[in-house]
């Protein structure tokens, strides 16, 4: 129980990084922390019902649940794709506005409309 409360705190820290921080790179840090937290939650839950790794050998019976591990393997690789794409978009934004602050980026991009 204490582990899952700590994971909830970790999730809220990542969420705080996304919605409160002004720096765009720190928003991507928050996104990475969110992704890792969800992976940890699934693997922690799946490891409750066994005591051995899911590689079959002789006389090793209660293995952990392999289904969450196979799903989270996909999630990690998709996570690095999201990170790379977000960083390239941030790089374009920095080249055209010269700042990382999300408010300044908005005021510079929509200067003509206001």
């Amino acid at each position, binding site marked *: 129980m204490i582990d899952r409360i700590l994971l909830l705190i970790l999730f809220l820290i990542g969420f705080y990084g996304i*919605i409160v921080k002004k720096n765009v790179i720190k928003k991507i840090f928050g996104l990475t922390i969110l992704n890792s937290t969800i992976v940890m939650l699934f693997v922690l839950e799946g490891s409750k*019902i066994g005591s051995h790794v899911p590689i079959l050998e002789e006389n090793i019976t209660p293995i952990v649940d392999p*289904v969450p591990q196979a799903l989270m393997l996909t999630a990690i690789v998709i996570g690095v794709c999201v990170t*790379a794409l977000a960083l390239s978009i941030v790089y374009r934004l920095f080249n055209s506005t010269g700042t990382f602050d999300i408010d*300044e980026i908005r005021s510079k991009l929509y200067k003509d409309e206001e």
Partner: protein
Amino acid sequence: MADRMKNNKISIFYKLQIFLAFAAVAAVLLPVFLNDSHWPVFARDYLEANGEEQTGAANIVSSIYLGYRAYDTLGETIVLLVAVSGTIGIISFTGKNLATGYNEDDFEGGNRKNRKRTVLMEVVTGKLGPVILIFGLYVMLFGHMSPGGGFQGGVVIASGIIFISLGTGGSENNILSHSGVLAKIEAVSFLLLVLASAIGLITGIGFFANPFNGNPIPPVGYIILLNAMIGLKVGAGIAYMSVAMLGDTDL
């Protein structure tokens, strides 16, 4: 916007918005994180009894994502392909910041810019790179019976190619950090992956079905084949992206 934020009333409103967002997320996620029901065991029991027999792989995780759920793996490789090409495209649209040969406007090639490199980094990364490549091949090809598989081995191979590219310093010295070679390896291995998935269509047992049934090749051969294709594709794609990004930066 910065002027408006100095207004006190709007600032209180902004903090209230953030507080409400936190409260909503916590209220939604609290039952999810604190759910104390028993984890179901029937999937584990079924896979433990039948997994090795049906797919041939002793590593049950590998038998799931290459045997039972192979569609997911194909979609994941497509997502990786789109992400790599989108990243390279977005950066090279303006960029002078990729390595020589990767930018759109100087695609004729040319000498890579001399980077600041120390002897320590050159020795460590250049000599450690081939060892990491061999370890990546081991992880990739033995994914059916030990921890590892296509994705893990591919990413380790990409790390090895990044090390070689950092250590030897440029496209003149080795062929692995050349832009065209990596892109061609990625394209060809993705084509081979799609062809390997379509073997079952020709023999009439379905898409992504295992065509090897023991004579002469045991069923685990299909897992090894798919692992090798996915590993080459993932490794070449991620190494392409990373080598392009590292090229013009003084690390």
